[in-house]
Structures are given as C-alpha cells and as structure tokens.
C-alpha cells in the first residue's frame, strides 16, 4: 500500500508543482493534453497561453508549428493570447524576448492517440484477471 501511494504521488507531483516560483518568466498553456482517435484524427482546439514575468520588457509567444510569433508585447509583465490550432503531433509554445532570441520558457502540448489502425489492438481477450 505504501509503495502504491508513493507511485501515485510520483505520478502527480510534477503536475501539482508545475508553477515554479523561482522562474523569471512563467508560461502556462491550457490545455496541455489533447486526445485524438480514428474518428477525430486531429486535435482542433482553442489554446489559452498566459505568461507572467518578474521584469517588464519585450516578450513574444511562439508556436513551434509557425515561423512567426503568435503575439508580442512591449513593456509588459504579463499577457494572454488564444490560439485556435489543428494539430496531429506534439507541438510547443515558447516565450522569448524578441527576434532570434533563445526561448526563456517552453511548454509542450501532447497529442495522444488512444486507438490504433491495427484492429487487433482492440480485441478483447477473455481473461478473468484482465479487466482493463
């Protein structure tokens, strides 16, 4: 039981402590996970990107699927932007301080496919101990 609790805590701790107070710039993306399947093979969602910085300045939010920044802010400490996106693979949002600058913070959105083109992966084996 103790081992099970430890595994549970290890699994969820990263999500619970995602906001690191020591970071200069904090980037938050919602949602971080998109589920796709055969019937809906691409993730069509509206993503909300929020950032907050300890220092006022010039900041740009970028999407790894685009070359141009999604939005830039001048002399700001925080910002928010929405992004309508259609994606089939993982992608990321990052924030930097202008053209050519390295990302200060990056957040990856996971696209998770819950089924397969191989029908055999969905077969039900009739084993008593196999409930999932």
């Amino acid at each position, binding site marked *: 039981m103790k081992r099970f609790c430890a595994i549970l805590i290890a699994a969820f701790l990263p999500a619970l402590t995602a906001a690191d107070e020591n970071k200069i710039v904090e980037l938050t993306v919602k949602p971080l996970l998109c589920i796709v399947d055969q019937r809906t093979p691409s993730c069509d969602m509206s993503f909300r990107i929020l950032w907050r910085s300890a220092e006022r300045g010039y900041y740009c939010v970028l999407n790894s699927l685009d070359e141009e920044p999604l939005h830039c802010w001048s002399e700001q400490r925080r910002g928010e932007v929405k992004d309508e996106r259609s994606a089939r693979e993982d992608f990321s949002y990052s924030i930097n301080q202008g053209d050519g600058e390295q990302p200060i913070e990056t957040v990856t959105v996971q696209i998770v496919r819950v089924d*397969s083109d191989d029908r055999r*992966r969905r077969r039900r084996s009739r084993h008593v101990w196999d409930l999932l």
Partner: protein
Amino acid sequence: MKAPGVYALLVLGALAAAQPAAAESPWRLGVAMGYGERTNPLVFSEDIPIVVDIDVAWFGKRFFFDNGDLGYTFADNSLFTGSLVARFNSDRVFFGKTETRFVNFGFDGAALTTLELIEVPDRDYAVEAGFELLADGSWGYLQFAAHHDVSGKHDGYELDVNYGIGWRSERWYIEPSVGVSFKSAELNTYYWGVRLEESNTALPVYETGSGINLRGRLALSYYVSRHWALSFAGEYERLNSDAASSPIVRERQTLGYFAGIRYRF
C-alpha cells in the same frame, strides 16, 4: 504480480520506447495498479483480487501475442481482420480459489445424518484453438470468435460475439460493450458438472447441456498524460442456466471491477 514480472515489463518497456516515434511500436505494454476483484461463482470459494493488471502484447504483420493468446492473422482488409488464435480457457481460473468443507446438509437443503465432505472438483486449463474476426467503424467495433478444445480436456467449443463503442470528451474516454458466449455441452459439463467419482450425498452427479452466457462491461479512462491514465472498469457476466444450476455454483453472476492508475509505455 510477482516482482520478476514487473522487471520483465520494464525491460520490454525500454524496448518499446526505443522504437522510432513516428512508427507505431509493435509492443503494447502497460501496467495498472489499484484495486479490484472478480467474484467467484463457485461454492466455498474466494473472490479473485486484482491489484496489478499487466498488459503485454506484441503485434507483428502476421503473428501476434496478446496476454497469453497467440495469433496468426490470415486476412486484414478494409472490412475485417481475421486471425487464427490459440488460447487458454479462462473458466479454469475460478477453480484455483476454492476450499474443502464438511457440511451437514445436502444439495437440496435437507439435513444429512453424517458430515459429508464437499470439495469443489479440480479442473485443468484447456488449450483452445480457433479463429476470430474483427471489424470496426464509426458504429463501434465487433469481435466474433470460435474456439475448440485441442488439449483433450473438455472436447467442446465456444462461440463468442462482443460489441463495443468508445466515446471521448477531452481527457475522458468511455467504452461500454456487451457480449454473448455460446458454450457447448461438453465445455459446460467439464467445468461446471460433477462426475460420478467426485460425487457424494451432498454433491450429486451433475451433467449440463449447452448454454449462453451474457455480459456487459463499462471502461472509463481519464488521461493525465501520454503515459498515465486513471482507469475504471466494471464487468458483469451472467452464467448460462445449466451452469448456474450446478451444485458447485452458488451465484449465477460474476462481477468484476478494477479502479486504479495505468501506465502505458
């Protein structure tokens, strides 16, 4: 599940993770930890606890291994996938959790003059071979299977049809399914009957005919990340009337449930 099984899963998981990201790994490996149980319909038996559910499967172009089932796929097209499958019969698992007891009443409930020993008869795992057809679409998925004993244990056969459909909403995934199994008289008698040499005053000889089992299942998942999900599954199966009337059966239905956290490699 014993520790060596978990270590083996970790090694296989590393192999699966080594596959190129774009290509689907032939492995399907997962482990779920939590709590659940399957009720045991046999008299003087214990329910079957399920604390760990390990999923080990490998799918090649033709051959596959799926948690103990071995298969060879002979057809795969837009309409269906057909495979030859060898498996162990799952009814045997109930007979591993039984007790022997002395009773002072008979099968009909009448008092006995002497104590009689009731021992749930031992049954072997039967190896069965057959074929299965899988089809799917926007309407859900359908599985038909026919298996016959090839190990000389019961010399019977089983026909099975299973239908399910899944829906998702953001991180939630729900999949109800229903199934029907026809069990031949030979199979039914082997597992649920009582032979002459096993009988006594309290446990009479019992032979069964063929019968149909019905079942329903509901699986629910909440995806936390690519690898982690919270999962719940519940299953109900109603034994055919001949099996349910056996003196070694106390409950007509078996219930199974499991709730826990699942990791997919």
